[in-house]
């Protein structure tokens, strides 16, 4: 299904410039968009880290890490773009817009020595989406879309010492600021209706395995000169006890595990619309 949507949108997008310049009744409007993105994570490598960390320190911890829920990176987003429609009763409709949203998630585990391991995951999403479809009387819209999705993940692992001071230093190997980019080409569809200048879309998008890194990219620390690995391990026990035999293909947190299916509901204001 998503492959059909993808090819339909791609073909339409190639034909669109010709149709735009060939028509004289087209209307172009700038739009400001506010949306909520309910995203469903497709991978749980980070939870492997949390679980293996909990397991490794089972006898010396007073409080364990909670894992990450699939929908925990959902967030509101803000964007702007442009929409083009042709025809009055029925016609082509397209749109190109950019949205930005972010979400931070914190987890803590406490040792019996009163040192707290704190992790902060900050996810920033930039989506560039192209809609192509049709409208009925410029009130009801059905679009297929393709979207470039650029997700940046920053994962801090720090220690809070018993006096409250916080360290991201290198006194312990696991501490660090780890980063990765998860870039996907998404395909999906959206339905919308418009009341005067307000446009309300509801859409769904799936990440395509197009030009994927195949799990090679990982959450990596900027400071790579460490005795163990500069990446966040999925298997903390292996990382701690036998780092030399850690399998980098399977036992590190992969960027692609941050891919998500997205369900969006938004509201757009069209400047200059009838």
């Amino acid at each position: 299904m998503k492959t059909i949507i993808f090819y339909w949108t791609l073909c339409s997008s190639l034909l669109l410039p010709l149709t735009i310049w060939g028509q004289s009744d087209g209307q172009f409007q700038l739009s400001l968009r506010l949306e909520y993105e309910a995203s469903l994570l497709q991978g749980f490598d980070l939870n492997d880290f949390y679980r293996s960390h909990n397991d490794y320190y089972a006898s010396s911890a007073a409080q364990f890490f909670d894992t990450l829920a699939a929908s925990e990176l959902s967030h509101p987003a803000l964007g702007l773009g442009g929409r083009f429609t042709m025809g009055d009763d029925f016609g082509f409709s397209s749109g190109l817009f950019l949205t930005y949203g972010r979400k931070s998630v914190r987890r803590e585990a406490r040792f019996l020595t009163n040192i707290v391991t704190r992790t902060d995951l900050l996810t920033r999403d930039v989506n560039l989406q192209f809609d192509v479809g049709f409208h009925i009387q410029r009130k009801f819209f059905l679009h297929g879309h393709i979207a470039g999705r650029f997700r940046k993940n920053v994962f801090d692992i720090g220690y809070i010492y018993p006096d409250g001071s916080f360290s991201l230093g290198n006194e312990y190997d696991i501490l660090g600021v780890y980063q990765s980019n998860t870039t996907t080409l998404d395909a999906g569809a959206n339905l919308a209706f418009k009341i005067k200048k307000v446009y309300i879309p509801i859409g769904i998008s799936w990440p395509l395995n197009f030009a994927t890194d195949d799990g090679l990219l990982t959450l990596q620390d900027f400071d790579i000169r460490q005795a163990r690995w500069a990446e966040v391990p999925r298997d903390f026990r292996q990382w701690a006890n036998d780092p030399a035999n850690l399998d980098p293909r399977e036992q590190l947190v992969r960027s692609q595990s941050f891919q998500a299916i997205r369900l969006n509901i938004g509201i757009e204001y069209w400047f200059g619309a009838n």
Partner: protein
Amino acid sequence: MKKYHLNILILSCVLLALSTTACRDKQQRYLQRLEGKWNLASETVTIINPDGTVNFESEEFDVGELSLTNEQGLDFFLEYTLTLNDGTVLAGPLPFQNDEQNKRIIFYNYFCSDPFDCDLVATVEEDKSSRQVWNWYRPFGSGSHRRVSWVFER
């Protein structure tokens, strides 16, 4: 000019402005701001005990000078030299960096010259154009930790 041509022009200008802003690198900007000479205004060493109590080990003022230079014109590195007031060079000249998120400072080969486990990574506590506070920690035995707090001013 049709109205929608004007709209397209406005949208293009906004997107261009956004992309230009996004391309300015935070790490580079921060490094450029740090370049120059800093007075090590104070060094405070404390021991943090497992019960949360803190023992002051030492506190010194006007300790020395940190020189951060970029004579090679590199984009993402400076060269640091840490000199005490009596002229003793504590470390340097050696490579110096902040990380991409500007949360940490990395003094390469501060402790030794090996490629691994010789760097000093400090946490940025305060970041102002004329004042920097960087803390670094080391295990001190029996669950205690030693914290060194450096305050640089200029």
